């Protein structure tokens, strides 16, 4: 507390003394707070999702704290983490001394407006905040929007967004998006629903609760909004008994792919095929909640486009 106050005082002092200093760094985070530093931060500690947003843009954190063992963190899949210290591998648990030893200038997490909290656990943000100011983009209604926010953050941190690799990722994404839009436009009657499958019940997702589903919707995919959900109130799945697996008959079913087990569980249910889309085998991956960069998004969109191209849009009369 003391350290933070004195840092803040120092910052204010500096800001007053040198109002037009060229090296001032400011960023307004998703929480609405503006972080002001006297120099551009070089050493960043990032939550796994923020790291997944920043690393492909050329900003490499010095430390990452994850919600799980690092190999289980879906958002970090395929990213080069060499040389980055892992300072946390469980929710709410971070090695504060390792963090301090990294001498961070900035902590980057994601702001969850709905819970008024930083991602990774409420305690972590509190534990790390004495080391450096915390900021980050807000979890929003569009993954593309979030990636653009990450671009702005990365640019302010000194990233060269025109670098060939980054530009290529973006171009690949734009191509994938155009292909996806063409695929949905070609099948205007195609109806889809996003689900999570458990052994006890099937959970129908409200697109309003998942940014990537809202993206897909805006690119022409007709996604069903289930009943009994309240996206504003943290409840954006409708829990339905497997007896009513055909409650929302659709041509296409998107299955949460955070874990491969979810699809296996779905396929093992005898009533899975009550839904005509499932019976026709028109099932695709729903990259649920974890996309944070263009490369991963392009990969997932390409898979979806392939399924939609091959799908029969009239299995539901």
């Amino acid at each position: 507390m003391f350290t933070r106050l004195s840092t803040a005082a120092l910052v204010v002092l500096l800001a007053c003394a040198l109002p037009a200093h060229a090296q001032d760094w400011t960023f307004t985070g998703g929480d609405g707070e503006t972080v002001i530093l006297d120099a551009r931060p070089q050493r960043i500690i990032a939550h796994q999702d923020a790291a997944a947003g920043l690393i492909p843009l050329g900003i490499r954190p010095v430390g990452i704290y994850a919600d799980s063992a690092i190999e289980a963190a879906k958002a970090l899949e395929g990213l080069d983490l060499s040389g980055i210290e892992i300072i946390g591998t469980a929710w709410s648990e971070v090695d504060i001394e390792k963090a301090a030893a990294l001498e961070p200038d900035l902590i980057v997490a994601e702001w969850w407006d709905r819970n008024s909290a930083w991602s990774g656990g409420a305690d972590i943000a509190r534990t790390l905040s004495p080391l450096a100011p915390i900021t980050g983009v807000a979890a929003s209604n569009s993954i593309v929007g979030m990636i653009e926010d990450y671009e702005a953050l990365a640019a302010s941190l000194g990233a060269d967004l025109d670098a060939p690799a980054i530009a290529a990722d973006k171009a690949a994404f734009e191509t994938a998006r155009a292909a996806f839009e063409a695929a949905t436009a070609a099948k205007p009657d195609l109806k889809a629903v996003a689900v999570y499958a458990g052994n006890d019940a099937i959970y129908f997702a409200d697109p309003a609760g998942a940014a990537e589903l809202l993206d897909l919707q805006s690119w022409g995919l007709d996604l069903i909004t289930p009943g009994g959900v309240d996206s504003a109130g943290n409840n954006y799945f409708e829990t339905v008994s497997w007896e009513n697996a055909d409650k929302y008959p659709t041509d296409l079913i998107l299955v949460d792919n955070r874990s491969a087990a979810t699809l296996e569980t779905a396929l093992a249910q005898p009533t899975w095929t009550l839904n005509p889309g499932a019976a026709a085998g028109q099932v695709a991956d729903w990259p649920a909640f974890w996309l944070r960069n263009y490369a991963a998004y392009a990969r997932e969109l390409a898979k979806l486009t392939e399924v939609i191209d091959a799908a029969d849009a009239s299995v539901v009369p």
Partner: protein
Amino acid sequence: MLGLPGLAMALLAVAILSLTTGARAIPYDMVWSAFFSFDPAATEHRIIWDLRLPRTLVGLLVGAALGLAGAVLQGATRNPLADPSILGINSGAALFVVVGVAVFGITQLTTYVWLAFIGAGAAMLVVYSIAALGREGATPIKLALAGAAMTAVMQAIINAILLTSPRTLDEVRFWQVGSLAGRSMDIALQVSPFILAGAALAFLTARLLDGLSMGEDVARSLGQRIGLTRGLAGLAAVILAGAAVSAAGPIAFVGLTVPHVARAITGPSYRWILPYSMLMAPILLLGADVVGRVISPPGEVQVGIVTAFLGAPFFIALVRRRKLAAL
């Protein structure tokens, strides 16, 4: 007076209730025609055959297994508290399932069955050895507390794994409640040989348990081999309770409460307590499952929660009413 035929009728009634009650409204005549003029194209018929029938069968098997396991354990240990959940069998099963999911990436209920089965046996062995050491042997309170302590130890290990593997947490949180939902016919077929064998073994020990209930000295003077009796009964209990927890997840208190009710009706002879328990436990379990299906629409409350909330108050009332040490 209920009597075994009366109980069998009640069980049949609950089974029919279980076939006709569910999230999807299916008229009675449809249930009837599902059995006597099955139409594979009719969704309702498929739901009866694919969901409600396996669920009901698993409920019957698990209920009977839990009732018998509880009765045999109580007889063998002469301990009114001997229940699979209290003796750590459930957490042993949970520990093995968690390790299986986290380390070996196992995801299907049919594989959980084997893991849970082995874990249950191992845990039971450890708890019993801890409690049986010392001059006074496995006293009720030592068994109960050794079980509770081992449960806490195993829970700590489970927690360590679940904390670093959200995926395992996501899988296991639904298993750990104890539920009959989503159980397929495969699971009923997988566990039924074990439950049948365990039940046969349990009934074989009934006479020995009666001998034991007169006291170890009396039993010994009648030429009975106490260790053998305990071993056979323990084996039956582990097979039954292990099969039950592997099929439905940990379900608390059915095995504990039902034999007490049976004993109150039949008197102290295990030749009667065992069949009564075997019929009464599935009535409780399936009944609780039906209650769980309708109590909070459109979702369901898992049977493990309903039984804990029916079982624990009953048990507390029992503890308040009499001293349980004497069996």
